[in-house]
């Protein structure tokens, strides 16, 4: 058997990184250049997280302004147009710029560690995904600074309101191009994750031994690659309608705006699962750790995740029950939607089963996880309600639906993502977040969240529609709206406290050892934070919860280690090209935005196409630069002393703690 001892025989030959391309390939992995050119999945993950948290705060501020406007009836804190822009940008920001990238941050950082890989399959493509996300966020938010302002058509952007006839302003163009570039980010990321998970697992880590979070990453990635094409094409069609006079959604030319809704929700419903499945994966990692028990019914949880993903493509029209679908279609989509409740329920049962008989430690991540189950249950149950079209007819487009999806997306996704942050923060930084502050954050958020969103159920059932910037007094909505705003502010306070805690912990946090939670999965086998090469050896996996087996299992299930060969560990070189490629796309998208804006740019708008072509040429050029520079790479020879900071010696089963 190979052991770490082999490495001591290795000579520490200096690595000679390749230097190709138009300029020298960046060698330094520190400083600004280090971050801009990084291909390290961990750094990319951190950048994703920082970007996502920034946009979470931005979207949160937008939400607070919205709630301030609705605090009292017939208020005029902001104008109707501004309100419409705010809820459009709030929705778009939270979905595409906060929750998805935060999930992507975990995919990037945690997944390769969980499968014992050195990095993702295509490190430079990973970096491209990151920069496309950043530039997509920039494009979307640039719209605030141009005449006409941000898009004001809703994140769903139903045609024909998005037609130039009804939205002549530039906002919708920003929205289209921003989403398009964010779509590229998600797509390249997902191809990468799929390849990584299928192909780069450590020896012995069969699919049915994969940690649940990795499984959910895989399923989510499949959802992304199959759902995003629908919106990409729909956006292209909308762009053609707005810029080149086609009739896809233009009623006067015979277009059917209902088609937009179908295409949008063919994407939009799987998107919902893209937002929630990673959260379920995180929960399925945390519950076993703090219950000190393996996941109950692992195969069934995996299977139900896959079923949810698959059924997610067969239920899109339940967002359209009020659009006059035929009886057969309505019934079919209603029943398929109800069917989804079963695999979702299975997950909840199995989470309870995981905790059952365990020894539950209510740490901050665990509190957020349990909070997730409660809140997700609430959101799920209201979801069952409007899976029934007659009930949905009263609830669609009301605050009831707003309550429902915030229970799923905040109480669900965001709580789970926060749980993940508390759980993996020591992994990423090597520092512990304070349990005391963490619990305060949880309770503030939990109370604020429920106060903000529970009254919305009542608002919806008593007839308050969504997306209205004000409401008449005397409709019986005053109380609920008032308390909802108060709750939103408390929730905002909780999030602010959380961000402060993160920043504080980064600088002043208590150092911790590699495995502070007594965890179960492979990512905790390495140092915290991991070295840039992740594992100084190739782990050979013999069980599902490998680290747990290392600590408490029989010898036959303990991990083995294969030392790197005489060349050391191969590392890819950093690269400028992903960033330049993303800049090319950014320029192309901006050109396309300006092409549609004669209102304030006059005849010069026609140069927009020229800018687009320049951007595309930059893109093409960077593809060549990328291809010709090659993956490059150098070899590292880890110092034997750096090995496995957290891994107990395989001989002793109780070495830890």
């Amino acid at each position: 058997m190979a052991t770490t001892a082999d490495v001591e025989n290795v000579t520490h030959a200096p690595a000679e990184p390749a230097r190709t391309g138009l300029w020298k390939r960046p060698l330094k992995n520190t400083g600004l250049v280090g971050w801009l050119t990084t291909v390290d999945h961990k750094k990319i993950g951190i950048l994703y997280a920082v970007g996502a948290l920034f946009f979470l705060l931005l979207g949160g501020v937008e939400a607070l302004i919205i709630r301030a406007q609705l605090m009292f009836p017939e208020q005029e804190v902001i104008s109707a147009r501004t309100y419409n822009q705010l809820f459009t940008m709030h929705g778009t920001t939270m979905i595409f710029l906060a929750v998805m990238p935060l999930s992507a941050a975990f995919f990037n950082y945690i997944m390769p560690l969980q499968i014992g890989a050195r990095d993702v399959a295509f490190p430079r493509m990973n970096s491209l995904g990151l920069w496309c996300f950043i530039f997509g966020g920039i494009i979307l938010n640039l719209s605030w600074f141009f005449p006409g302002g941000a898009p004001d058509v809703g994140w769903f952007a139903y045609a024909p309101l998005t037609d130039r006839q009804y939205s002549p302003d530039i906002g919708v163009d920003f929205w289209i191009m921003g989403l398009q570039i964010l779509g590229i980010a998600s797509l390249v990321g997902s191809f990468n994750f799929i390849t990584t998970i299928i192909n780069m697992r450590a020896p012995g880590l069969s699919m049915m031994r994969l940690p649940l979070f990795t499984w959910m990453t895989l399923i989510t990635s499949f959802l992304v690659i199959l759902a995003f094409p629908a919106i990409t094409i729909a956006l292209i069609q909308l762009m053609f309608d707005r810029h080149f006079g086609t009739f896809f959604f233009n009623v006067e030319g015979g277009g059917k705006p209902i088609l937009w809704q179908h295409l949008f929700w063919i994407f939009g419903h799987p998107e919902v699962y893209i937002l929630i499945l990673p959260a379920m994966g995180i929960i399925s990692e945390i519950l076993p750790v703090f219950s000190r028990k393996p996941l109950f019914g692992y195969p069934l949880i995996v299977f139900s995740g896959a079923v949810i993903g698959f059924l997610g493509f067969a239920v899109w029209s339940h967002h359209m029950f009020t659009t006059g679908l035929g009886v057969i279609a309505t019934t079919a989509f209603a029943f398929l939607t109800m069917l989804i409740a079963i695999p979702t329920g299975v997950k909840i049962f199995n989470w309870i089963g995981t905790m059952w008989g365990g020894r539950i430690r209510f740490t901050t991540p665990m509190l957020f996880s349990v909070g997730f189950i409660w809140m997700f249950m609430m959101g799920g149950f209201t979801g069952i309600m409007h899976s029934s079209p007659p009930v949905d007819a009263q609830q669609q487009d009301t605050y009831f639906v707003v309550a429902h999806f915030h229970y799923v997306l905040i109480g669900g996704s965001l709580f789970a993502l926060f749980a993940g942050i508390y759980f993996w923060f020591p992994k990423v930084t090597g520092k512990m977040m304070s349990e005391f502050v963490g619990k305060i954050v949880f309770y503030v958020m939990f109370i604020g969240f429920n106060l903000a969103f529970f009254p919305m159920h009542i608002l919806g059932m008593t007839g308050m529609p969504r997306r209205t910037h004000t409401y008449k007094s005397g409709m019986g909505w005053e109380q609920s709206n008032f308390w909802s705003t108060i709750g939103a502010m408390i929730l905002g306070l909780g999030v602010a406290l959380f961000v402060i805690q993160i920043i504080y912990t980064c600088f002043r946090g208590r150092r911790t050892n590699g495995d502070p939670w007594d965890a179960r999965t492979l990512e905790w086998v390495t140092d915290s934070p991991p070295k840039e090469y992740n594992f100084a050896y190739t782990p050979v996996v013999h069980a599902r919860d490998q680290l747990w087996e290392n600590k408490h299992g029989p010898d036959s299930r303990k991990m083995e280690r294969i030392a790197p060969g005489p060349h050391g560990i191969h590392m890819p070189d950093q690269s400028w090209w992903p960033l330049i490629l993303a800049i090319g796309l950014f320029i192309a998208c901006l050109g396309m935005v300006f092409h549609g804006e004669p209102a304030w740019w006059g005849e010069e708008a026609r140069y927009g196409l020229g800018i687009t072509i320049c951007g595309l040429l930059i893109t093409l050029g960077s593809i060549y630069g990328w291809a010709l520079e090659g993956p490059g790479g150098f070899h590292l020879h880890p110092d034997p002393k750096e090995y496995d900071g957290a891994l107990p010696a395989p001989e002793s089963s109780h070495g830890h703690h």
Partner: protein
Amino acid sequence: MIPSPDPRLPESGHAAVIAEEHKKYFTFFNVSIALIAITAIELVIVYFPINKWIVLTALGVLSLIKFLAVIWWFMHLKWDRMLCTILFMIGMVIAGGTVTALMFLFEEDPAGPPMMFMLF
């Protein structure tokens, strides 16, 4: 410069690779002949003055054969691991299902006349 053969295989297998690829040549040739023949048949049968359903079914079956032939032989699925086929089929099944469902949904247009299979 003559590069060495496929590095995935041991050196001793080089001759086997060559033989294998030679066999593939004839397979590819036969497949391409079949594809052209089927295209020709398709071009002819659309003019047959027979029941539209027979023509449409025939068209569907023939293009499906062409489709499968290309992915099975030209795209190496026959020789590759099953996983590639499964991966692609996931996309095909969901895309096919979506197209079918959309076609059905737009037949249900309550405003218009029953347009079921007006095109097909």
